[in-house]
């Protein structure tokens, strides 16, 4: 069974700042990792995912995430945030065997970008 932890419930930054949203996971086998964004009052939208290859993956709107097997992490980063990036960000994990392919979500990190 896979688990995912997002240690920061709320992160506040100024517009133009860089930001890193943290995600740690636990799973014993091959793993798929992804990030989703949820703007207030809406459903979740896919941002990016990693399965294998280059540990740094690029997503939409300048987001990227880096996989680290040694740290069991998949942190999301953006070099310069915009006010429209204010949203809740969810890290998700799924495994490759049996019923483990279903997405398990973290509790989310609320990102507030202050003008």
């Amino acid at each position: 069974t896979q688990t995912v932890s997002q240690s920061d419930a709320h992160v506040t930054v100024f517009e133009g700042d860089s930001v890193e949203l943290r995600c740690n996971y636990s799973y014993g086998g091959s793993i798929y990792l992804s990030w989703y964004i949820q703007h207030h009052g809406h459903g979740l939208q896919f941002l990016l995912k990693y399965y294998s290859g280059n540990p740094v993956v690029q997503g939409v709107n300048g987001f990227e995430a880096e996989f680290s097997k040694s740290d069991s992490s998949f942190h999301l980063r953006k070099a310069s945030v915009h006010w429209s990036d204010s949203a809740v960000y969810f890290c998700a994990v799924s495994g490759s065997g049996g019923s483990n392919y279903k997405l398990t979500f973290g509790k989310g990190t609320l990102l507030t970008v202050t003008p």
Partner: protein
Amino acid sequence: EAAVTQSPRNKVAVTGGKVTLSCNQTNNHNNMYWYRQDTGHGLRLIHYSYGAGSTEKGDIPDGYKASRPSQENFSLILELATPSQTSVYFCASGAFKNSDYTFGSGTRLLVI
């Protein structure tokens, strides 16, 4: 554009009543999912389906049933609604195992 549509967007139900939440997808995806979202819990999987005619229990299935009569439609049924089922419910679809999900806009359910 491929989409997942949920209905109703908002619902008020009485305790003990039956509630049906509907989900329709135009993505032609095999897999569909029902999650509930609560503050402090993130999203938790209730039921899912591999295709028409199949339903599987997720992590928190108690008090819920699901129905997948066709590739496009996936319903969540609360036979005897309770106040603890007050939540925001999201439906999602995915093409295959480990593909990214497309989510609906959610149904906000209040059980009084």
